């Protein structure tokens, strides 16, 4: 067993790809075969990844695997290697958690669709590629995995071709994604030109001799390329469309692991391969990118009236948090960023599943046509509230814990450097969090509370197999907040340590002493700082008291709330009566677009420009991506010099 465990990383990837082929052959007609293949492949793969936890996280080993046992000869990596350190395994755990839950959820959620054999194939290909991406130690293998990922993701976006906008979303995703992949590939080619190797550990060792202009260019290209995969502004435009148009089980996979793949690539690139984060100007560049992403994402979300599109923009915004925190270059910042990445996987997955449940039950995700579903779908409402509290950063849920890390990391940089920029970043992060809360109050009100439209009176709660993944994610959200010291010690500390010790990564792959010979030195081993002084249990008690107070108010209130609206008629519509009639106001439903109307009115100019920029034209989106990449490359050249 102990011997065999070295094969687990590669087998975990292979079993998924094998399943993809089997699903196409046997799952074409038989529903049972399809389900058996899907569930057995994802569970076997997940079990193999979980079996690596003791070695990597508890014993601190770095596992390596050379395909076909082609080990390095004369200091040169001649084969394709897999390398699993704590950072890679951390992301791999996110990946397997996401796809297992999504697979269970999709059993019932997708049952009304046709061609489910193809769905299973594409889904398993997507899972296998992202898992391979975070485990591989070879940069060209990484590119191939990125391409398979994009390819499967585009096809899954277009899977419900008849739904609104699925095809055009897929086309835009394909165009922008290909531009990003092209930039990554050119960067890899230039790196190979400079270093004559494709192994990331060896690249890191060779690049310690200093960056030539070609390697600087490669850094710029690849940063932009992974920025596209992580959907940072200005590369985020296809994400909003794709998350909206894809089936919810796939949207969960997108926001849970596909954009995490971009985040992982970016971290691996700037910290391990180029080890360029000791330059404060590069940190600031990436922080600016992250801050702009989180602000633009959340403001665009405020303007949405489709449930899933709103979640998509929040997803973009939360990735902004992750990138900002990770780019701070401190241990606290990196662990906060990784923690937030993990929490984002949990709560955004949960929210997308809730959106899927609403779609499954009510047949629409348009906020203006929903309302009052809490009476029909109590469990989904409870899960949604947990997800909404988590993403909005309310204690004691996990979103609060990781955002607290991030605020603290940004603020401690502001204090230690005295640079006003970090203060702005901290304040922006807090403001974005408040706006996230506002946006989710809107969704909660528009979908689950208020009046139930007459046409939704037949809605029923979703099946059990759809509720189980939501329940698991909800528990994860709560556990991440309540037991964050445990999470921080067992998962985040080793992963953050792996980010800051590239020499361990190099030595594990290329043989001990390689890093020292190449002159690679690790950053001073800083102990993981104690994250704040807040006590989750106290916050939980406070929350319970506040909730009890709310319930008291509700229970003593008028009993006429929650009546079914008679029609959606124009003249008798209760919501206008309050403003124009002068008669006794009936309890009326405030729909999603009407809430925060005043706030949006004040920012009218900004929203008009921002919504105008999201024009839906693929040419515009491509030009943002190209201009963004060119600017990023120029900035990186200015930082490192043309020499």
């Amino acid at each position, binding site marked *: 067993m102990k011997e065999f465990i070295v094969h687990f990383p590669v087998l975990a990837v292979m079993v998924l790809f094998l399943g993809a082929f089997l699903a196409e052959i046997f799952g074409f007609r038989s529903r049972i075969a399809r389900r058996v293949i899907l569930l057995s492949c994802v569970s076997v793969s997940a079990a193999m990844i979980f079996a690596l936890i003791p070695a990597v996280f508890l014993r601190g080993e770095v596992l390596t695997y050379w395909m076909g046992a082609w080990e390095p000869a004369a200091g040169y990596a001649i084969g394709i290697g897999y390398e699993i350190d704590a950072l890679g395994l951390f992301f791999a755990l996110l990946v397997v958690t996401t796809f297992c839950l999504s697979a269970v959820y999709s059993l019932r959620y997708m049952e009304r669709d046709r061609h489910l054999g193809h769905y299973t194939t594409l889904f398993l290909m997507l899972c296998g590629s992202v898992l391979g991406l975070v485990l591989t130690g070879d940069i060209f293998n990484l590119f*191939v995995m990125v391409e398979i990922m994009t390819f499967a993701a585009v096809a899954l976006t277009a899977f419900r071709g008849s739904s609104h906008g699925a095809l055009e979303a897929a086309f835009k995703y394909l*165009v922008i994604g290909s531009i990003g992949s092209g930039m990554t590939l050119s960067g890899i080619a230039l790196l190979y030109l400079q270093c004559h190797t494709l192994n990331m550990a060896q690249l890191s060792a060779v690049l310690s001799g200093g960056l030539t202009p070609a390697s600087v260019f490669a850094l710029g290209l690849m940063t932009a390329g992974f920025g596209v995969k992580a959907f940072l502004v200005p590369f985020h435009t296809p994400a909003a469309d794709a998350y909206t148009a894809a089936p919810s089980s796939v949207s969960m996979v997108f926001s849970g692991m596909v954009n995490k793949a971009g985040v992982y690539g970016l971290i691996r690139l700037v910290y391990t391969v180029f080890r360029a984060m000791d330059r404060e100007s590069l940190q600031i560049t990436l922080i600016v990118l992250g801050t702009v992403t989180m602000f633009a994402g959340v403001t665009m979300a405020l303007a949405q009236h489709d449930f899933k599109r709103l979640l998509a923009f929040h997803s973009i915004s939360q990735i902004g948090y992750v990138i900002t925190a990770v780019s701070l270059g401190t241990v606290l910042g990196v662990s906060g960023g990784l923690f937030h990445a993990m929490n984002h996987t949990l709560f955004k997955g949960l929210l997308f599943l809730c959106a899927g449940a609403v779609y499954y039950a009510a047949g629409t995700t348009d906020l203006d046509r929903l309302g009052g579903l809490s009476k029909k779908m109590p469990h989904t409402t409870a899960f949604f509230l947990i997800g909404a509290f988590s993403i909005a950063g309310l204690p004691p849920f996990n979103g609060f814990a990781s955002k607290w890390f991030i605020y603290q990391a940004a603020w401690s940089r502001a204090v230690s450097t005295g640079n006003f920029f970090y203060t702005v970043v901290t304040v922006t992060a807090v403001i974005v969090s408040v706006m996230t809360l506002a946006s989710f109050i809107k969704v909660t009100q528009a979908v689950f509370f208020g009046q139930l439209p007459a046409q939704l009176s037949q809605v029923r709660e979703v099946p059990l197999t759809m509720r189980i993944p939501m329940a698991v994610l909800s528990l994860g959200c709560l556990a991440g907040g309540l037991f964050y010291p445990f999470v921080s010690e067992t998962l985040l500390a080793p992963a953050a340590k792996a980010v800051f010790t590239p020499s361990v990564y190099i030595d594990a792959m290329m043989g001990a002493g390689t890093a020292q010979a190449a002159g690679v030195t690790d950053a001073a081993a800083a102990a993981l700082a104690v994250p704040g002084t807040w006590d989750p249990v106290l916050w939980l008690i406070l929350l319970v008291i506040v909730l009890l107070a709310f319930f008291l108010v509700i229970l003593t209130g008028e009993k006429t709330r929650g009546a079914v609206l008679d029609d959606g008629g124009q003249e008798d519509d209760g919501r206008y009566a309050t403003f124009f009639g002068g008669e006794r106001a009936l309890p009326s439903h405030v729909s999603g677009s009407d809430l925060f109307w005043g706030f949006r009115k004040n920012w009218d100019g900004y929203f008009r420009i921002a919504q105008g920029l999201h024009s*839906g*034209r693929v040419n515009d989106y491509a030009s943002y991506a190209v201009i963004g990449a060119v600017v990023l490359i120029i900035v990186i050249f200015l930082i490192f010099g043309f020499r």
Partner: protein
Amino acid sequence: MMTVNYLTAAVLIVLGLYCVISQKHLIKIVLGLGITDYGINLLIVSIGFNLGGTAPIYTLSDLMNGVSPVYFVDPIPQALTLTSIVIGACVDAMALALVIMIHRKYKTVDADEVRRLQG
């Protein structure tokens, strides 16, 4: 000699991206992506090329008889290019399939009209 290759690669990449940004016809956008891809492929295959080098193919008897492999072109970029070509062909095929389906549903292939998702 190699400068020409690199320049051509750069020109192709820029032309392809320009095509993607400026053309409204969806099939022309796909063609633009293809041109970018060709530019990148040219770049990679040029990286491995050595002027006057031989093919990197040696039989065991060559090696035993002292035909020493001293000066040959780098085979790895060729393998990379091959992979990249295959991926590029798949991407193009999928993009064209999507264009056909968009045409069926929207009755147009003009990028200005295929924009139901916006804002």
